[in-house]
């Protein structure tokens, strides 16, 4: 977990794993809300950049949640 996208991907997936048991739709809602509420803009910018670069390593719920969040932003 040295470079920053890896760490952010790990953190985002950790959030995803908590919400996963609530089903896809509620998970996507929960994940995007959580990241919006608690991540500072710098971290969000970095994860969006990673998303643009293909979003490697992001779990499916998380990928959807980040796309949803970026559309809102």
């Amino acid at each position, binding site marked *: 977990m040295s470079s*920053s996208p890896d760490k952010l991907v790990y*953190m985002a997936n*950790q959030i995803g*794993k*908590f919400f996963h048991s609530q089903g896809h739709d509620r998970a996507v809602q929960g994940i995007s809300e959580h990241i919006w509420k*608690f991540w*500072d803009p*710098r971290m969000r910018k970095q994860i969006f950049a990673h998303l643009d670069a293909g979003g490697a390593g992001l779990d499916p719920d998380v990928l959807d949640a980040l796309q949803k969040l970026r559309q809102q932003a």
Partner: protein
Amino acid sequence: MSLIQETDFGTPKSKSETMVTLTIDGNQITVPEGTSIMRAAMEAGTQIPKLCATDMVDAFGSCRLCLVEIDGRAGTPASCTTPAMNGLVVHTQSERLKKLRKGVMELYISDHPLDCLTCAANGDCELQDMAGAVGLRDVRYGYEGENHVFAKSHGCENDNWMPKDESNPYFTYDPSKCIVCSRCVRACEEVQGTFALTISGRGFDSRVSPGMSESFLGSECVSCGACVQACPTATLTEKSVIEIGQPEHSVVTTCAYCGVGCTFKAEMRGEEVVRMVPWKDGKANRGHSCVKGRFAWGYTTHKERILKPMIRERIEDPWQEVSWDEALNFAAAKFKGIQQKYGRDAVGGITSSRCTNEETYLVQKLIRAGFGNNNVDTCARVCHSPTGYGLSATFGTSAGTQDFDSVEQTDVVLIVGANPASAHPVFASRLKKRLRQGAKLIVIDPRRTEMVESPHVKALHLPLMPGTNVAVLTALAHVIVTEGLANESFVRERCDWSEFQDWAAFVADPKNSPEATAIMTGVDPNDLREAARIYATGGNGAIYYGLGVTEHSQGSTTVIAIANLAMVTGNIGRPGVGVNPLRGQNNVQGSCDMGSFPHELPGYRHIAGDAVREQFEAMWNVKLNKEPGLRIPNMFDAAIEGEFMGLYVQGEDILQSDPNTKHVVAALSAMECVIVHDLFLNETANYAHVFLPGSTFLEKDGTFTNAERRIQRVRKVMTPLNGYADWEVTIMLAKAMGFEMKYNHPSEIMDEIAALTPTFAGVSFAKLEELGSVQWPCNEKAPEGTPVMHIGGFVRGKGKFIVTEYIATDERTGPRFPLLLTTGRILSQYNVGAQTRRTENVVWHAEDRLEIHPHDAEQRGVRDGDWVRLTSRAGETTLRAEITDRVAPGVVYTTFHHPDTQANVITTDFSDWATNCPEYKVTAVQISPSNGPSDWQKAYDEQARNSRRIAPVVEAAE
């Protein structure tokens, strides 16, 4: 100002609601049934002479001084053990009573030294008072006979005489002055619950004895001070009183150690503290204390305190002492320069959970309004941030639900990942008292803590593998749901029913059963089922938890699982039940309440909410940033990436307390300006460019908020040695940066907090003066505060059940790191030890030790006391081993109080999914024999010594 004299009613207050009326000395008095005649008389203003009675402990009836006459009853009963009854006619003074009392006192004094003038209790001696009260004028027996008073009698050694025991660093035991009233023994049993003291021998041979005639220090004594407080003579006396003399005035204030928030009288002589005595009206502690609050305040005047501001360009340079102006201007110029060069968001700050609410509020205000960003965080990030998240999601408030008094009505106590006997000792004493009355105790902890087994207390212990909290708690819920023990009517009325059904279906899944999860958790399924049944059906069930819950990858999930358990059993919303996080630091609740988190303003309101933010903007007259700021671990990451360059740290030692020390060192080293505002050159200061001297809790006014949400006054008893209270320093720093904040007194800061925060709307210094303390919410709906929350309904509306899937941490054991390290605290030390290491408390704990099971130790050739190397994926350190079966095979344990051990070199970057609270409690490690300090420890020590150099001041020539 004068010395606050608390009335001693002789026996404890009766809680009965039935009243009885009796006549004492011709006056009618009505008291609750069960009140002693002694207490009834005192309530009416008549003090019956007494020696063995005091209202902190039950009546004992041994001194025979408190005799009274009752019409129609034979003899002269002791008023302390005789209950008041309807229609009794009592006389407290008569010829017969006078004679009897005088006779009793004469016997006492015939075996007591008459060195009153030079005695430490001179001015505060109940024996002397009683001799005066009964009119004793003569001791006919003389002092020639057998006695305990003189070392030699008739030229020979006196075998009855015992020398003073000065082994305890804070008090002495002088057996020659003992009247064997047993107050100390009973205080140790009834108040503290340690049972360290006893009376050995019978009759004339009776002696107070710590353990089996051991020294106080060598016995089980935990130095809480209850015995010293109870002693009516100079037998047990604070060494500070012996050295200084009796205090002349006192001020009520709040302890600055743990989250229990004990109230003390600071007993003073001028500006010198003579002693700290727990205040009986303190609602958190009810007159009790622990070794830290009672005795360990010597750090406040320790020679290592830094009293002058210091600066340096580079951390390799020695410190330079400068004026306040120069230091503040230097700091302001650096911060402004950083913001110009790297952007507005490149600086931030950390508020202190040891400082007052008012000080914390000002630091977050400086950051949000002065720095213009929301990069503010606090040490709760690394302890109870998951509590905030979890309880807010399920109940709607980020705090415990009860007051401490609630435990007196609890039938089943469930402790999860907490060791109150060490970390919250005064609450532990109150809890143990309830347990001795018959309440049941369940402890979920990897380690057999002091709570699991103590005198007259035996818990049902579920020793789980570190990291499996969620699996264990979900299995408890499984048993409750599948065995039909859920409180359906409560859930239907108070919680969201469809969410409950989803949750119930989830927990009922056989994969969550105790039998299925045992392979991961290591907990005996039968014990777990038994625990679930006891909690669900044993009456009022209360959960108390600590950092063993929060400091995990699934910390927030565990808090949610706890809330689920309380809801499914209906154990919420009345006295005796609830969910109670035991807060670590004195004001960690307050620092969270005061808006120390980057995403929320005071009162837990998200920064993005326009309406709330606009209120603050109007009051502060500045535009606020609506984006959440960086949390502490995010600040470190950003620093290493070169985007976060300046940090103001008030009263925290992040280098020692935060995980993965190497990462923290890298982050701090990367910053261009670190301002440390503290009492001492702590570990973080080794990487700082500006040092602003801090003030202690004795040197300022303000408030602390304890784990019960109780807001209590901190009162200034001496002038700040460094010149300024911390709130004044923050104002000066803000001014240097061009942001003016004007307050003449902390009460004005509290007024601003109350104006902006609905849960604090009714709080003011005037109200605290009037009521002593209040628990928030305190507003129009609850003008005197809220002892118990969620009565009749949850703050968020319907209680929310949330599914808690167990996800194993990625910190795994394997061939290279086969053991799990978990961390905790010890009674005598506090947090990073910055305060307690600078007191005599080091006699109990001079170094951190590694607890290891005999089996694991033998495999590695480690003997008790050997130096061992402790290695994890993050780093390595060395410390000495203590072989014990308190820990299970496969688990090792240490404390983190000493910087030379640096337990956090070992801990990793893993953190709670929701809040980034670090996973301190689970680290995969290996242990091997070692010869001494690791290379890291040596390098660290050298850097620290270098960094702490202060350049000699060169006097300018005239």
